[in-house]
């Protein structure tokens, strides 16, 4: 790092220091000055086609692009002179000339760069009275994405993304001049695991996702940053949800997941698998404690957990390691795993501690890993071995605690039920409804990772702590609280207040 040469320059009267090779746009950003732009994206080389980032550089006869001009020692940049403001206004006027007045029905409203910049740098009466070019407004380009050619400002971010990031190049630019348009080749739609990023990077509402189209408004969305839990990459993501208005009172819906920024992990991208994980947060959720003996009864998890504690206590100490089995999963946070260690290994001296996780898949060469759980390294660091249970071992237990429903991915329902049939006290701690529910004595609804705070260790050994991105449904609790309460109930929290 010490070898990087720094350059001093002045931007709007402010002295700024930036590393050699930095663009004026980036240097300004570091100094807290936002220069408007459409086609520039930090992940790509400067493109220079939108012309929105033109600024004044002393000594040069014309305005120059901030995105492609590299800082020089002593450079003097001005980003708000009358000629710069006029240039911005003109770019907006040119773009809006052929842009449809779709704001009332466009998904991008509220997070659209054209809107934002018009609000800040435009506010002029329209002078275009000609007939606008008529173009296709609903071109299906693949993976549920829809292209509206009237809205497209030809920044070509989408084309460049598919050429440089995924290397798949499904989008191209056809025709020329004002007739230029973006599209796919017949029969070769966008088909890669990063298609969702096209919606994120489109500065306007030209590319939208049918999954999100017309469902809500950007300004209703609460943004909850967290870490994706669908593989071990640990991409920074933003869960965007609405709780209450304009949904019904107490109703909650996660509308989409967007990529967050993390230079050490995912840059500015995330994969479609992670995006599809939004369904995980809302769908098939267990929301009440269910006792199969008394299915109508309204139980609090604390009271129900007392049953679990009692069953565990009922097994004499020396017999516990033979008669009590636990199946954990690698979606548990480091904090939860530490507690599990404290309770099951240190506290109860159990040996039959297993892990049931989603099966591995194919890595995609970019972000998606083979492992499809977020915290395998956390599991290892906690001192656990990630062993899949064998059903015979489970069968021999008298008390079984199962966290998660992934057992069914590894064994047939029939085999699992047969194995579990003879176990007297079976307790399930799961977020999603599954056939396992009816085999358990008590089912505890737990939170999904987006509803928790904690730490994951990703595939590169990076520890990432995250906060709660979205509130869990009423009645749903986390494994952290459950394990804490178990610890209290088992007398392992000597001197500490009751954690139930």
């Amino acid at each position, binding site marked *: 790092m010490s070898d990087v040469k720094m350059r001093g320059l002045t931007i709007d009267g402010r002295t700024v220091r930036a590393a050699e090779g930095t663009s004026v746009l980036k240097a300004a950003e570091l100094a807290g000055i936002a220069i408007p732009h459409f086609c520039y994206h930090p992940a790509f080389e400067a493109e220079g086609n939108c012309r929105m980032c033109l600024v004044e550089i002393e000594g040069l006869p014309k305005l120059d692009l901030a995105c492609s001009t590299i800082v020089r020692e002593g450079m003097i940049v001005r980003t708000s002179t009358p000629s710069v403001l006029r240039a911005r206004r003109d770019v907006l006027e040119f773009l809006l000339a052929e842009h449809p007045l779709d704001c009332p029905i466009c998904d991008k409203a509220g997070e659209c760069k054209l809107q934002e910049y018009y609000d800040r740098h435009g506010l002029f009466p329209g002078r275009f009275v000609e007939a606008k070019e008529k173009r296709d407004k609903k071109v299906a380009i693949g993976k549920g994405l829809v292209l509206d050619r009237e809205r497209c400002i030809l920044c070509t971010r989408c084309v460049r993304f598919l050429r440089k990031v995924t290397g798949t*190049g499904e989008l*191209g*630019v*056809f*025709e020329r001049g004002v007739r230029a348009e973006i599209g*796919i*080749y*017949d029969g*070769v739609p966008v088909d890669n695991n990063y298609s969702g990023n096209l919606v994120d990077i489109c500065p306007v509402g030209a590319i939208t996702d049918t999954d999100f189209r017309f469902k809500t408004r950007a300004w209703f969305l609460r943004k909850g940053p967290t870490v994706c839990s669908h593989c071990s990459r640990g991409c920074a993501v933003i869960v965007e949800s609405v709780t209450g208005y304009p949904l019904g009172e107490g109703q909650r819906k996660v509308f989409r997941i967007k990529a967050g920024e993390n230079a050490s992990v995912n840059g500015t991208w995330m994969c479609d698998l992670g995006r599809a994980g939004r369904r995980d947060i809302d769908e098939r959720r267990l929301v009440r404690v269910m006792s199969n003996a008394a299915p109508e009864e309204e139980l609090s998890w604390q009271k129900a957990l007392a049953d679990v504690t009692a069953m565990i206590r009922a097994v004499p100490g020396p017999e516990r390691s033979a008669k009590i089995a636990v199946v954990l999963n690698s979606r548990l946070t480091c904090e939860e795993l530490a507690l599990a260690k404290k309770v099951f290994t240190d506290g109860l001296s159990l040996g039959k501690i297993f892990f049931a996780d989603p099966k591995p898949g194919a890595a995609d060469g970019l972000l998606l890993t083979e492992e499809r759980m977020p915290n395998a390294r956390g599991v290892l660091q906690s001192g656990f071995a990630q062993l899949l249970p064998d059903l015979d071992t489970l069968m021999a237990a008298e008390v079984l605690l199962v966290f998660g429903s992934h057992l069914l991915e590894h064994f047939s329902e029939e085999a699992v039920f047969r194995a579990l049939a003879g176990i007297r006290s079976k307790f399930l701690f799961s977020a999603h409804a599954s056939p396992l529910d009816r085999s358990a004595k008590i089912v505890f609804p737990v939170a999904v990772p987006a509803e928790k705070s904690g730490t994951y260790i990703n595939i590169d050994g990076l520890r990432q702590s995250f906060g709660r991105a979205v509130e869990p449904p009423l009645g749903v609790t986390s494994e952290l609280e459950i394990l804490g309460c178990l610890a209290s109930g088992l007398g392992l929290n000597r001197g500490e207040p009751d954690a139930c």
Partner: protein
Amino acid sequence: MSYALSAATLAKIEGMIAPYPERSAALLPVLGAIQEESGCVSPEAEAWVAAKLGIRPIQVREVLSYYTMFRRKPAGKTTIEVCRNLSCTLTGAEDIIGFLREKLRVGPDGTTADGRISLVTVECLGNCDHAPCLQIDGTDYGRVTKDMAAALVRELEAHD
């Protein structure tokens, strides 16, 4: 691939590709050779060229749709291109165009009903001292008068 070009064109294409440091650079000449033989560049041809040059079909179409001299659909057997730029307009190009449109009775897409002749207007052909000028299948005609235009049409219509 079932798409087939003549042996002569195939040989010509090999010769075109050879001098370029990168195969894909030969795209424009190769498309020109295909259009010369087939009259246009069809989707089958796009796929063939893409495979031949190691690029994606979409890249072929991007180029095809950018340059005005390439055709994706067949045009008339003969194409008449009349310049409409400044020197030609100053010397009566619009009259020639109007005259030819009437004489040939071309449809809105510029082609005669029997598909034999296409009439299109183009920008500067670089023959301005012979304005008004036109090209018939790439051959230049200058100082075109209505009589000359009529004679050219007669000749074209006679020839098949």
